[in-house]
């Protein structure tokens, strides 16, 4: 291929040229502004990889070690950059290895375009080598998917894919392209971005009467509570959100995916909701008179038992996805729309109200929590280190400026509880699906999505072993991510449940680890391991200051439990401090 075919695409007047489907795919990516692709080649996607060889200048392709690593990297990239993550995989096992990441991106509303190779169209349905029905496998875990068997469809379908992935409530899109379509030469007339699909309404039209009703309820509220989720970040509405809560002095609590949308130190930030959230926001959910949900979906880990959730409150629900309204919690005032538009409309109608007596209740609850939980966690008197004190020292050293990528389990809850954030899009975690193995590859993606920022992956000793092969990706590409393993020599969260709810019958939670420092060395990655408190600060400094990837393993107490906790089946008011 000549380099002149790499010239700017999106040009309708461009003369017709004959190109292959594969080149059309890559032209679509460059026209969409894609800079980074995470992927893994194989038989059925080889024509695209062949074309990619000529696009090396325009597209950075990161060769991962497993397609699951590729898609989690795509997710990390999307979450850190606010752009769409792009992933390549081959047919059959390559495609099925994307399944966990697709499900994760679907439930956490992460924009992805995944391109899978597929066997020749004439072989479809014949159990051909590496053939799998990826479209039907991924139907319930994609926002949209489509199989291309004719190269002529490639420009329009990819344009639709990027539009669908990113618009409205974002989500993963999978495009499966048969090998014949990748090879097929067709007359290409340029790439036009998609901005309308008649059957698809990404944003519901805002109804002014509900905006007015919402503002009126907030103005009358004596004890308002705002609970916000990732919708604020996805809508790029952080400023609008802050103006909204500041105007009427609204205490605001976050879901795990909403974390970092509002800086931790903001005086109206009253902490985390849900099962391991802060004491105040949980118990006061059942005391507020108006509950204002912004871009969140009342997940069961946030609400606890629904029939004991905020029954006394009027509920205002702002969401871009109409199917979320009334799904779990009935809204008295449904404000459909993009919160970037609806929040300023409500803010304009708000009165400045002093809620300091009500806000004081959150402060009082926090004092109680500090005394009974947080103090012991951050300044322990035990011989063993706690996860909380590690996070606390990390905060001090990063000054809240790092991107923190977490896996799933106790370390995730502790990190989200105690990590400090100054900037949005800084907390990357697998929230809805709870995918162990997410953090290491997601951190790789996050680093590409925010190259100038420090990226720290905090991972447990269970999760890290699920995708540890991605150390190879870090090695080969010299990716400067910091890997902090909090090793309690247990599958800690499962053990905690066994401790609290299964009479300490520790069934298969005792997990052995390899020598992570030796493993890292094998991948030519620097690392160290500590178990003594006096080494903590120095080791964290070494990790953060090291000019490249660094793995730090910290041994923490074996049987520490994460509190507070709303036990499953209990109401948020029944939160336990110990």
């Amino acid at each position: 291929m000549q380099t002149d075919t790499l010239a700017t695409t999106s040009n309708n007047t461009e003369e017709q040229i004959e190109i292959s489907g594969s080149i059309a795919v890559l032209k679509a990516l460059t026209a969409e502004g894609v800079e980074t692709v995470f992927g893994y080649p194989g038989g059925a996607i080889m024509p695209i990889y062949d074309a990619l060889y000529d696009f090396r200048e325009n597209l950075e392709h990161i060769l991962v070690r497993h397609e699951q690593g590729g898609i989690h990297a795509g997710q990390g990239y999307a979450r850190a950059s606010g752009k769409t993550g792009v992933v390549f995989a081959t047919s059959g096992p390559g495609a099925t290895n994307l399944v966990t990441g697709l499900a994760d991106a679907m439930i956490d509303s992460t924009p992805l375009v995944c391109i899978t190779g597929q066997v020749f169209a004439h072989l479809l349905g014949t159990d051909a080598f590496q053939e799998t029905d990826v479209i039907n496998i991924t139907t319930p875990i994609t926002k949209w998917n489509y199989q291309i068997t004719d190269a002529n469809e490639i420009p329009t379908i990819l344009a639709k894919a990027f539009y669908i992935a990113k618009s409205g409530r974002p989500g993963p899109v999978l495009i499966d392209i048969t090998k014949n379509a990748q090879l097929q030469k067709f007359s290409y007339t340029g790439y036009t971005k998609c901005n309308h699909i008649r059957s698809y309404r990404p944003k519901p039209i805002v109804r002014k009467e509900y905006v007015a009703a919402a503002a009126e309820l907030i103005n009358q509220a004596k004890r308002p509570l705002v609970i916000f989720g990732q919708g604020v970040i996805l809508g790029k509405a952080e400023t609008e959100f802050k103006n909204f809560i500041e105007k009427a002095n609204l205490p605001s609590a976050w879901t795990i995916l909403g974390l970092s949308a509002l800086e931790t130190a903001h005086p109206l930030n009253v902490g985390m909701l849900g099962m391991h959230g802060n004491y105040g926001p949980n118990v006061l959910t059942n005391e507020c008179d108006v509950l204002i949900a912004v871009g969140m979906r009342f997940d069961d880990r946030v609400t606890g038992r629904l029939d004991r959730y905020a029954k006394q409150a009027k509920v205002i629900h702002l969401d871009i996805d109409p199917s979320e309204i009334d799904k779990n919690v009935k809204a008295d005032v449904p404000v459909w729309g993009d919160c970037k538009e609806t929040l300023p409309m409500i803010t304009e109608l708000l009165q400045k109200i002093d809620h300091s007596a009500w806000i004081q209740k959150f402060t009082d609850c926090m004092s109680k929590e500090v005394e009974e939980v947080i103090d012991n966690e951050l300044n322990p008197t035990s011989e063993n280190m706690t996860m909380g004190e590690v996070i606390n020292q990390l905060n001090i050293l990063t000054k809240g400026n790092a991107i923190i990528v977490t896996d799933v389990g106790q370390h995730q809850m502790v990190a989200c509880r105690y990590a400090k954030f100054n900037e949005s899009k800084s907390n990357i975690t697998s929230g809805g699906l709870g995918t162990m193995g997410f953090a290491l590859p997601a951190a790789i993606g996050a680093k590409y999505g925010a190259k100038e920022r420090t990226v720290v992956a905090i991972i447990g000793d269970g999760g890290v072993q699920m995708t540890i092969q991605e150390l190879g990706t870090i090695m080969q590409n010299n990716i400067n991510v910091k890997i902090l393993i909090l090793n309690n020599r247990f599958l800690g969260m499962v053990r905690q449940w066994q401790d609290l709810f299964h009479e300490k019958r520790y069934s298969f939670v005792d997990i052995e680890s390899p020598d992570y420092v030796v493993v890292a060395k094998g991948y030519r990655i620097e690392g160290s391991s500590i178990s003594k408190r006096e080494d903590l600060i120095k080791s964290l400094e070494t990790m953060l200051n090291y000019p490249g990837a660094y793995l730090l393993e910290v041994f923490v107490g074996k049987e520490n439990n994460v509190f507070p906790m709303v036990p499953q089946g209990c109401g948020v008011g029944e939160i336990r401090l110990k």
Partner: protein
Amino acid sequence: MKQEYTISIYTENQVGLLSRIAVMFSRRKINVESLNTSPSEVEGIHRFTIVINQEEDVVRKIVRQIEKQVDVLKAYFNTNEEIIWQELALYKVPTDTIAEKAKVERLLRAYGARAVVIRKDYTIFETTGQREEIDTLIQVLQPFGLIEFVRSARVAIIKSSKGFHEKLKDFEQAETSLSENND
């Protein structure tokens, strides 16, 4: 309270959409009583007619999820009182019993059945109507040696609907309004 609801879905004509819609029911362990796909009053727009037996709240939520699908334009749900609906059934019976027994002929007339094919060995009757009438005729024909029976999916027209022609114009525009279900 569970009752029969008929869901009418206007969609693009896309391969794979049937399975995308079907898994939304199976994921929630909802049994689909009847499912029909057909063209609609608007050229190029497909119409699914799905019958389920569920509580209104469950139906409302699933209809919103269906409407969220990229290739779905609009989904409605209606109780039986709000629609006109029909099903078609075919019955194959031995011709000799029909010829012998005048009683059978009277019965078929009473149920509005129409002979579609008459051969020496068998006769095929057809009825169009609602579930109960069709089911009763099976019972009646059973003693006379009913050989084969098949019933089609339900097709339904929403009494209050003004059709989709005007709605489609809204959808064709870049900015479209989202109105409540069943308006």
